[in-house]
């Protein structure tokens, strides 16, 4: 099968292969949500470079053309299910819109929406079609949002912190749902998260983002086994492994992106930083099966 390549640019390229799940992991403020919105061209700022889906550059499309792409070829799942649904519109109507705006008739849209609600595990689908968002729980709302995102079997689904606003038990259910859907639909997904655990649950490739840049990209397994970039290491040591081990929080915080530090953007927080790190910005270098941007990657 021909693998289609989707490429986003933020100083660095990354690709998501068909049926793959790519995780973008980073702290809050690292620019990952902006990246997500930019991919679907809903970021209020300017985006330059190339976003390719099936060879079509989304940034070259007219406003009308990108609108036809949204929902059908590329879709997005948001973090806050409560605010992502229109409070004064019935759930069914909001779901049916995805179909009607892309040319389906009302009755087709109704049937397909009903089917979708069942697919995402919402009981009493007929009844739910007529309810308003506030009558659903957070988990149910997120299922509705997921239904909207997969409705037209898009080429790429962006999931921006899909479980962060939910209770832990619900989080697991939603993660399972996403996992099952991406397997049965063969979805290509970009998962944006701050949680290495969530990334490990769903994805096979992972990109670590820091201050608007990718610092390490590679297969999940090898990054989890041997994290190369000091920032990846720091993130990994934030995951509790046992009750006895103390958590090692990373000191400091993500720099202000309007005035990023010179050289490597991570150097002010990096325990391994040397003079070269404060002067020169490292490039992404290929090391075995991954890309890493660190001057000291061979030495540490």
């Amino acid at each position, binding site marked *: 099968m021909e693998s289609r390549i989707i490429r986003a640019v933020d100083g660095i390229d990354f690709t998501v292969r068909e049926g793959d799940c790519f995780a973008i992991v980073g702290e809050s403020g690292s620019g990952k949500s902006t990246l997500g*919105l930019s991919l*679907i061209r*809903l970021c209020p700022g300017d985006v330059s470079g190339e976003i390719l889906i099936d060879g079509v550059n989304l940034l070259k499309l007219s406003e009308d053309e990108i*609108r*036809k*792409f*949204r*929902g*059908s070829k590329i*879709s*997005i799942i*948001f973090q*806050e299910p409560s*605010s*992502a*649904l*229109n*409070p*004064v*519109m019935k759930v069914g109507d909001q779901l049916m*819109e*995805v179909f009607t*705006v*892309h040319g389906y008739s009302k009755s087709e849209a109704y049937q397909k929406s009903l089917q979708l609600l069942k697919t995402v595990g919402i009981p009493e689908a007929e009844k739910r079609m007529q*309810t*308003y968002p*506030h*009558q659903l729980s957070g988990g149910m709302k997120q299922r509705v*949002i997921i239904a*909207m995102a997969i409705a037209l079997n898009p080429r790429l689904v962006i999931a921006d912190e899909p479980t962060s606003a939910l209770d832990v038990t619900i989080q697991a259910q939603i993660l399972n749902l996403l996992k099952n859907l991406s397997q049965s639909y063969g979805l290509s997904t970009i998962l944006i998260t701050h949680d290495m655990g969530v990334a490990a649950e769903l994805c096979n490739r992972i990109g670590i983002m820091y201050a608007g840049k990718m610092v390490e990209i590679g297969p999940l397994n090898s990054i989890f086994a041997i994290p190369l970039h000091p920032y990846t290491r720091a993130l990994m040591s934030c995951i509790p492994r046992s009750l006895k081990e103390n958590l090692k929080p990373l000191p400091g915080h993500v720099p202000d992106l309007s005035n990023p530090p010179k050289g490597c953007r991570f150097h002010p927080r990096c325990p391994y930083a040397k003079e070269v790190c404060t002067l020169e910005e490292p490039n992404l270098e290929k090391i075995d099966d991954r890309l890493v941007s660190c001057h000291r990657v061979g030495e540490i």
Partner: protein
Amino acid sequence: MGLCYTVGGKPVLSALKYFFYRLLTLAITLIGLVTLIFILIRSIPGDPARVLAGMMASEEDVNLIREQLGLNQPIYIQYFIYLKNLFTLNLGISFRTDSPVINEIFARLPNTLLLAVTSTCTAVIFGIPLGVIAASKKGGKLDFLLSTFSIAGISLPIYWLGLILILIFSVELRILPAGGSGTPMHLILPTLTIALYLMAFIVKITKASVIDSMEKNYVITAKSKGLSERTILYKHVLKNALIPVVTIIGLQFGALLGGAVITETIFAWPGLGRLIVDSINSRDYPMVQGSIFIFALLYALVNLATDILYTFIDPRVRLK
């Protein structure tokens, strides 16, 4: 007076309980209000008996009138008689005209209602679409024009606007009557005066509310589904944005029911507003108390109606 919010789809109060709760708070509010009015009107300097008898009347005549009006009784007795009458919906007899207060009020009420309805409708019909246009063309020339208009409309005093309209349409163009009532032509200038102010207000509130709703997350969701800006504005944003606008319209309409005092005075419009002013001037206690009581009652009822209207716009507010 709070709204009845539902929690997880279940109403906090049943519709019937809610209605009785509202009636009870209404009754308490009204009793407080009539007491306040009773005290306030009596603390204005001036003696109604003296006003009625005239400046030249003798002290005996004034005393006689005072006795006829019951003003010689201690003030708490007057208060209890007033409250007792109120419970039987007897608003008393006007000092000035000797006819029942309720008749005088009902003679004026239709005029006030008419003016309130025509001006509110005019303001809503033009104000909401213009507000939406201003919001969707934010930063454009049209928005600038509409914003200037709405600032002017809100800040220009009504008496000035009324006089200017009279100057243009009655004095210069001679196409509309400057005052009085009776024909639809008489209605136009007072309606216009109130409607321009109200419309400016509605344009401003609608614009702000639409812009605010445009920034909500569900708008991004709608965009991500592939909906056009236009569809999003009319199908998603407008209904959300109208919720605060409805509140403002309800409050303003309620206030107009008490009579637009200045407008009615400028255009010699025989409504409640002028009745209240005339009654205060002649210290006609029963008339002042009666008309303010009726005004407060209407105002509260309009508020109740606005809250009920909410349940149709906002599904999160449900009575049943």
